[in-house]
């Protein structure tokens, strides 16, 4: 699970303050120490951690908690605000024609990101192209070409040329008609003078509207110097964190945006071309604090629903709240969920309803759920349209036929039917609720535990 130790240790240290209305200097020192360790353990630059923790300490001891607020809420709020202060807003990415230059260390994921980014723009209705100027790394041309095909965007490269400037010049012309021109560059570290000079030349040819630094989430304290030197060479306008589906916390990105005085634009988490999310600071921090990322989840949900609706025009998600809930509805829901991406990634984005409950879901459970969805789909393919619409008509002999037809066991078919009955029950309850009831339900959920801090951040 991606939700990692940083969230856990922060939560743990703040838990120590739960139920107290005042905080002693010793307790504060203890919490500050834990916060420092958590941030250092997340690869945030040491000096940055110190200045951050100093401001937290000052504010926490100077400011009285507002009446009625507990000490832990108060400190949490300060920690949150200081992090917001540090992280700032996400980079502004206007949806108009622009040239984007991607730079970064070897192996940070520039090429994959180029394809993801091109696809991101094209889903927003802008035609995009990728120009590959990496003449150094063997296979860079082929990789980009294949990735661009997957992303369904225009590709320009020249495998026979060894001159990045030549490729660049003809590439810029060949892709001029596209709204977004993404220029991928060879990986380099900021200490190679000749490669930095080359980059400066590329920069002067492209005159990019935006130069983005690609940073591996696992990058250590080296992030500081790399960011500083890249910034000095060509001027960095934003950062993209990659490989965020690993266990690394991406603290190096915080250092980098601090050094370049910029912000994080996107987060890459996954191997497929759609695995790129717009960076959302509040969500990122909530995630650091172990409270899930509500907004990112909604975005994914909307996107999946949208893609789904494109294929299946007649279906309105709100129809769930009317009429009977059929197996067809259940299948649509399951497919929509699959579209949102791997289940474990989605679970990661969800707020934990109880404190830390999300972390307690065993990894196996996630996988078995994924498998189950596949099996359910197979079973439903062996049902007749009328069975799908009226699952109550499915008796023992039909179960036998369906299991044989789908190559599954009768138990699995029964499990599917009982799952449907459970979901139907839930939906019926929601159908019965009026507006006021829904609000009361939300309130009750908030009182339940982990979400009680959310109202702080509105």
């Amino acid at each position: 699970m991606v939700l990692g130790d940083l969230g856990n240790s922060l939560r743990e240290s703040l838990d120590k303050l739960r139920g107290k209305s005042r905080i002693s200097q010793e307790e504060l020192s203890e919490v500050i120490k834990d916060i420092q360790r958590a941030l250092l353990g997340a690869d945030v630059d040491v000096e940055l951690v110190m200045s951050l923790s100093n401001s937290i300490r000052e504010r926490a001891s100077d400011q009285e908690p507002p009446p009625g607020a507990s000490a832990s809420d108060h400190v949490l709020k300060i920690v949150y605000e200081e992090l917001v202060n540090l992280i700032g807003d996400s980079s502004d990415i206007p949806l108009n024609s622009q040239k984007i230059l991607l730079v970064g260390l070897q192996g940070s994921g520039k090429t994959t990101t180029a394809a993801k980014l091109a696809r991101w723009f094209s889903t927003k209705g802008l035609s995009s192209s990728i120009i590959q100027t990496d003449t150094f790394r063997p296979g860079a041309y082929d990789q980009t070409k294949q990735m661009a095909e997957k992303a369904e965007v225009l590709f320009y490269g020249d495998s026979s040329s060894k001159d990045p400037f030549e490729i660049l010049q003809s590439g810029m012309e060949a892709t001029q008609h596209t709204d977004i021109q993404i220029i991928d560059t060879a990986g380099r570290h900021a200490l190679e003078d000749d490669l930095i000079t080359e980059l400066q030349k590329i920069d002067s040819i492209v005159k990019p509207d935006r130069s983005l630094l690609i940073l591996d989430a696992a990058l250590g304290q080296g992030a500081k110097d790399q960011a500083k030197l890249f910034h000095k060479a060509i001027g960095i306008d934003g950062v993209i964190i990659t490989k965020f589906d690993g266990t690394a916390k991406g603290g190096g990105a915080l250092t980098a945006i601090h050094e370049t005085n910029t912000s994080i634009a996107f987060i890459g988490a996954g191997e497929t071309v759609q695995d790129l999310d717009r960076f959302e600071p509040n969500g990122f921090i909530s995630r650091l604090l172990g409270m899930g990322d509500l907004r990112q989840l909604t975005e994914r949900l909307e996107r999946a629903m949208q893609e789904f609706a494109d294929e299946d025009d007649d279906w309105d998600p709100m129809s769930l709240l009317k009429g009977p809930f059929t197996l067809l509805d259940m299948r649509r829901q399951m497919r929509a969920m699959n579209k949102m991406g791997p289940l474990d990634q989605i679970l990661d984005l969800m707020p934990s309803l109880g404190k830390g409950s999300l972390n307690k879901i065993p990894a196996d459970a996630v996988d078995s759920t994924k498998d189950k969805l596949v099996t359910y789909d197979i079973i439903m393919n062996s049902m007749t349209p009328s069975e799908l619409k009226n699952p109550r008509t499915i008796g023992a002999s039909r179960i036998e036929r369906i299991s044989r037809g789908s190559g599954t066991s009768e138990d699995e078919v029964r499990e599917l039917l009982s799952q449907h009955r459970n979901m139907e029950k839930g939906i019926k309850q929601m159908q019965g609720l009026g507006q006021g009831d829904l609000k009361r339900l939300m309130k009750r959920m908030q009182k339940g535990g982990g979400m009680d801090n959310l109202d702080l951040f509105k």
Partner: protein
Amino acid sequence: MFESLKSSLKRFKKEIKSTFEDSPPEPDVLPVSDTKEETSSETISFKDKASSLAQGKAIFDQKGLSSPLHDLELSLLSSDVEIGVVDVIIDAVRNDLVGTTRKITTGIDSVVEETLKKALLSVLDESTFDFKSFLSSNSPPVVIIFIGVNGVGKTTTLAKFAHFLDSMGYSTVLANGDTYRAGANEQLNVHSEALGKKLITHQQGGDPTAVLYDAVEYAKAHGIDVVLCDTAGRLHTNKDLMSQLEKINRVVSPDLTIFVDEAIAGQDAINRARDFNEMAPINGVILTKTDADTSGGAAISIAHAIKKPILFLGSGQEYEDLEPFNSITFVDNLLN
């Protein structure tokens, strides 16, 4: 290389010296404990101090050590040593120094240096790997696979390693077990041509174990000494690809599994090394990108996490840029 670690240790030596050299412990001040664990060595009696002073020795006490140790902790962290490993090192140094007496004549420097050396070697694996005897003791073809996270430099390292074996007089065939990433075949093909090596590949999307099988068959038929197998980069959290790795390891049962990671990695290095080691037991590590001004902590973290030797450091873009690593010279180097 590893300048940041070096200067951390140097600073620590200096601080200890300035704390203890100019002010020998005052007999009337009892050391104040500021750590969680109470050790017996903390309470140094007046008598001990008096007697050691009389014998021309001084004692390192908790109070005097606390600030230099805190600084050492932070500077190790800023050198990318993993936080848990930092704790191990700091505890080892503290336990070794607290209550230690020293002869004024030997100087504080050498005592502290000895302590640091011991602490560092305790987290590193001291064993070295002798390729010559390894290769001659295994019947050819010797199968070596390279594993690691995406973008750490597995393919480049494999090519450098082929070059290294060339210099030792061993023939190699390359196998591309990365049937996953776009451009993988092409990348390895360029290296195989440059090095004049046969490359065995299958189509993208194929089964990596089948490629490796073919490569071994090829090596047998042509009397080639070593099969070098590349694998697809994978994040240790990607369950499907990690079980594929487990399968490769099970089916191919390589003679040597080399874990490649980048020296610029931060705190997460330890998690990857552990997870990979679980799926395909690692025999040795190669750290890449050491030319990118790395602080070097990842070397210590990884070695500690899996207790396996670091074999080489990859330090540039040329085939020659593969430096043998030895933990004892590494530590000596850090302390000098």
